[in-house]
Every structure is written in C-alpha cells, then in structure tokens.
C-alpha cells in the first residue's frame, strides 16, 4: 500500500518532536548538574573538601563553610524521618487493612491533601502558631522533665529552632510515606493474608508476619522518598529554624540551627564578598549530590525487588 506523503511527513514530524522533547528532559538533568558544579568551581578550588567540615558562615569576615548546615540537615531530616516513618507506615496500614472502603475513601485523600499545602504556608503556620505553642507547652515541659539529656536544652525565646523544623518536615514527609505504603500494602496478595488469618493468628500478627515482612524493601524506599522531601525543603525550614552566623553544631534541639537548603535560600541574593555566591553554589552542589544518591537508592530498591512503580507526588 502506498502511503501519502502527508502521512509519512506527519509521522516523521511527530516522532521527531517526541524524541526532541525526551532529549530535552535528559539534557535538563545534565545541564542542572553542570550549572551547579560550574557555579561552585571558585569555592571548590579555594576551599576543597575542608569546606564540608568548616562550621562558620560569616560573609562579613569572608569565611564560608558547610559544616553547620550539613549537621543541621542531618539532624532535622533524620528527626523528621524518625517521626514520620512509624506514623506514615501506621497510616498506610490503617488505610489498606483497617478502614472500611467508605472511611478510607475520605481519609486517604485527606492525608494526601496534607502534601498539597505549600511549604511557605506551613512555614507561616510554624512561625505564628506551632512555634509559640511548642515554646509555651512542649519545650519547657520537656526541658524541666528531661533537661539532663542535652537534647532537651533551654527553650528558645521565639519557639523557633531545630525542633520546630523537625515537626514541620515531619508533616511534609508523612503524606508521602503514608500514600506509598498504602498502595504497597494493598498490593500484598490476598491469599497470603487470608492464609495467615485462617491459621488463627490475630490481625496484627498477620500484619507483622505477612504484610510487613513481605514489603520491607518497599517500605524502605517509601521512607527514603519521604527523607528526600525533608532534605530538600528550603522555605518552610528557613522560616522556622532560626539560623545564625556562628557555628550551629550543638545538641540542643530547641536552639537555632540551619540546613543546606535553607541557607541557600537565605544567602543567594547577597553578594558581600566575591566568594559568597560560589559558596552558595557549593552548598547546592552538596545538596544535589545527597539528593541524587538518595533518589537513586530508592529507585534501585524499587527495581532490584521488582516493586510496583512508585512516585512521590
């Protein structure tokens, strides 16, 4: 059969355009990595790897270092993961195994709506409502009861600090972990669950023995995606974490801190000395490397264990 010129032409154009668009997506990733490395090059050649351990950031004295922010990023994201993982998995279990179809159809979307709240609004809420509440009721109580543990030191005057940031990041990571683990638990074969229940085990024993143990890699990858969200959050953290130009490495959860992402947001528009912008790019490079590793790890787990595809949206 002879095909019209127009048809062959149209097929070619559509194919060409779609290939081009796909190449653009791949080029974007490369361009982002290149641009960040390029912007950081002056700071990288000046400081080398000692930048990672240097703990003060003071543009006035022309000293820059990422140590405090790496520490703050690990503390806030780690703390948020410690809180969000058990809560999120519990919500995933509730939605997939406990809730009736009708109740689940209401609560599931509500939990996902939590992820739709813009970070800047969550930060505003953190400044005005959560921070003062924490200072007046939670932080002072924890300090007087458990003050001998260095973690629960003197509460800050504003209620802003690492602890508030951890809670805000928990709220952000929670819906991601909950919705991925819900889909994961729903994908467990019903024969396995029914078989366990038929043996006379309780619901929880069935969950522990069948559901949780067969989905362990998927749970890990869900938690990693939640962690990835927490690591990269800039604005809400900047609003509630405090910051400062001195070294911010200390054990007190109620005092000021800062993270890589929030320091980038607060410093990039300033240009006090020539090294400032490259140093901010260096921070972005560190964050980029961490996020690439974390996301590739989650992807590797999904592929290695042949899990159903999952996206944190």
């Amino acid at each position, binding site marked *: 059969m002879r095909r019209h010129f127009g048809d062959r032409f149209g097929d070619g154009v559509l194919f060409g355009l779609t290939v*081009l*668009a796909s190449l653009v997506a791949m080029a974007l990733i490369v361009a982002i990595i290149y641009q960040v490395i390029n912007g950081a090059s002056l700071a990288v050649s000046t400081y080398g790897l000692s930048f990672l351990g240097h703990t003060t950031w003071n543009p006035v004295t022309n000293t820059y270092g990422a140590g405090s922010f790496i520490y703050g990023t690990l503390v806030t994201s780690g703390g948020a993961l410690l809180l969000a993982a058990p809560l999120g998995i519990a919500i995933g279990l509730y939605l997939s195994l406990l809730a009736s179809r009708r109740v689940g159809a209401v609560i599931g979307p*509500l939990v996902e709506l939590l992820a739709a709240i813009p970070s800047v609004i969550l930060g505003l809420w953190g400044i005005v409502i959560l921070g003062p509440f924490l200072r007046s009721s939670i932080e002072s109580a924890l300090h007087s009861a458990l003050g001998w543990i260095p973690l629960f030191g003197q509460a800050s005057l504003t209620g802003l600090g690492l602890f508030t940031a951890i809670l805000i990041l928990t709220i952000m990571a929670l819906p991601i972990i909950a919705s991925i683990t819900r889909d994961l638990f729903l994908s467990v074969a019903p024969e396995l669950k029914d078989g366990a229940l038929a043996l006379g085990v309780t619901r929880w024993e069935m969950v522990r023995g069948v559901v949780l143990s067969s989905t362990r890699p998927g749970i890990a990858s869900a938690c990693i995606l939640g962690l990835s969200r927490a690591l990269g959050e800039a604005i809400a953290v900047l609003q509630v974490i405090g910051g400062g130009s001195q070294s911010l490495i200390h054990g007190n959860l109620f005092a000021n801190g800062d993270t890589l*992402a929030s320091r980038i947001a607060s410093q990039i528009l300033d240009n006090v000395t020539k090294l400032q912008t490259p140093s*901010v790019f260096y921070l972005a490079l560190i964050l980029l490397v961490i*996020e690439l590793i974390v996301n590739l790890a989650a992807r590797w787990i999904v592929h290695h264990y042949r899990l159903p595809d999952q996206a*944190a949206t």
Partner: protein
Amino acid sequence: MSAIDHTGPLTATGNLRRRQRVDRTMRALATGAAIFAVAILVIVIYSIAQRGASQLSIGFLTKNPTTTINGTGGGIKNAIIGSGLIVAVATAMALPLGVLIAIYLTEFSTPRMAAPIRLALDLLNGLPSIVIGVFVFGLIVLSSGETGFAGSFALSIIMLPLIARNTAESLTLVPKDLRDASHALGISRWRTTTGVVIPSALSGILTGTVLAIARAAGETAPLLLTTSLFNPNATSFNIFGTSLPNIPLDIFNLSESGGAANQASAWGAALVLMAFILVGSLSARAMLARSRRMMSR
C-alpha cells in the same frame, strides 16, 4: 486423625488474651496515626481560614499593597496577576513538552529507550525545588538579571515530570483496540495519536496538568531566587523584562518581616493561595474519579 480435645475452654485465656491485647493496641495506634494526620490538616486549614477570612474583602483582591506605619496594608492584586502570569507561562512551556515526552514513552519507544528518559524524569521529580532555583539563577539571573520569565522557567522544570508522568499513565490506559482499529482503517500513526489516542486520554492529561499547576502555584524557593526583586506597590505585566510580584513571595516576605499587620496580610494571601490549590486538586481528583468510572464502564 488425632483426637480433638473437646474439654478445652472456648474463651480466650493466657497467651491468646495477650495476643488479642497486642492486636487491639496496634489497631488503636494505626487508627490514632490516621486521626493525627487528619487533625493536623484540619488545624492548618482552620488556622488559614480563620485568620485569613478577616483580611479578605473585595479590596484585598483588587488593590495593590500600600505601605503604612503599621506595615503593609491594602491588597494583593499585583501578586495575583504576577502569580497568574508566571504559572501560565510555565504551563505553556511544560505542557506541550510533557505531553510529547509521554507520547514518545507510550507510542514509540522500546523499553530500552524508555529507561533513561524515565530515569531523567524521576531525578527531575526528586530534585529539591531550591536546586532548580539555583540552576536557573546561574543560567539566567547571574547574566541577565531577575525576570518573571526566569521564575516561569524554574516552575516549568518542576511541572515537567509531573505532567509527563501523569500523561504517560493515562495514555497507557487507552485500550490497544482503539489504536489497532484506527491502524486497520489505514490511518497513519500521527493521525491515530492526535485524533484517537490523545482525545481519549484528555481527561487524564488535564488532571495531571491541574495537579502540576496546583503544585507550581505554591512553590516559593525557585521564585525567591528568580523573581523576588520587584516593586511591591505596583502592577507589572512585563514578564520578560522585570521581576513580577507573586503570592508565595508575598506570604514569605510578610511572615519574615514580623509585625501584626504584616502577619495578618500574610494570612489573607495564604487563604487566597490555599483556596486556589484546594479547588485545583479537589477538582482534579473529581475529574480522575469520573474518568475512571467512564473507562471501566
């Protein structure tokens, strides 16, 4: 066959009672976690509605900010216009690109060709928005200054993987029979794709786009790096020439500057933004549910 012990009690004793207690505790904890998450959502939405509603008036939506002794008064008209323009231009860039990528993934590519593209989309999706902001800052802002368009460009990178992924998903839901029937009629591939496949996946594409818009409308970090130096008291339509005021940065600046009047304005702007996002994501959800019903019928 072993004999069954008929003398055993039928009520739970000892070990079984303990197991049931653990079971009940765990159920209660899981239910409690779900209630906790919903409670957080309710508290946040309630705070926004309660504090924002007292700010909301016709004037708040139709007037530009005015600087007073107490802080910022007036409305957020220029920010609504700016946000609208920035997000509209971002959508105009991300939507065609995302749909084309999805068409390549579902209609043309082999699994081997699809893998690196999916990897790139996943990585783009996983990148923090601040890093995308830094990228655009280095690419555009350092050389030619802040513009609303630089903000649009950053937002379009955030929207691209969302749109491409959702579109690809709804394209794979289009039954193969439809494509086969079209091919059997001798219709060329591009006509099948644009005339049969895309129209039947349209509601899914629309859903993905609305969700991406709702996500982009609330993004603050990329805009802080690309379109933050604007005149707060004037309206600007010049997206390629100047920074545009926008709602997320208004909320950010007002919340950081402290002062009761400023924070009150921040809540008003937060209510406007949150209402837009809620309407967007709820209507997208409704569309998705409707189209799933139609497909399964």
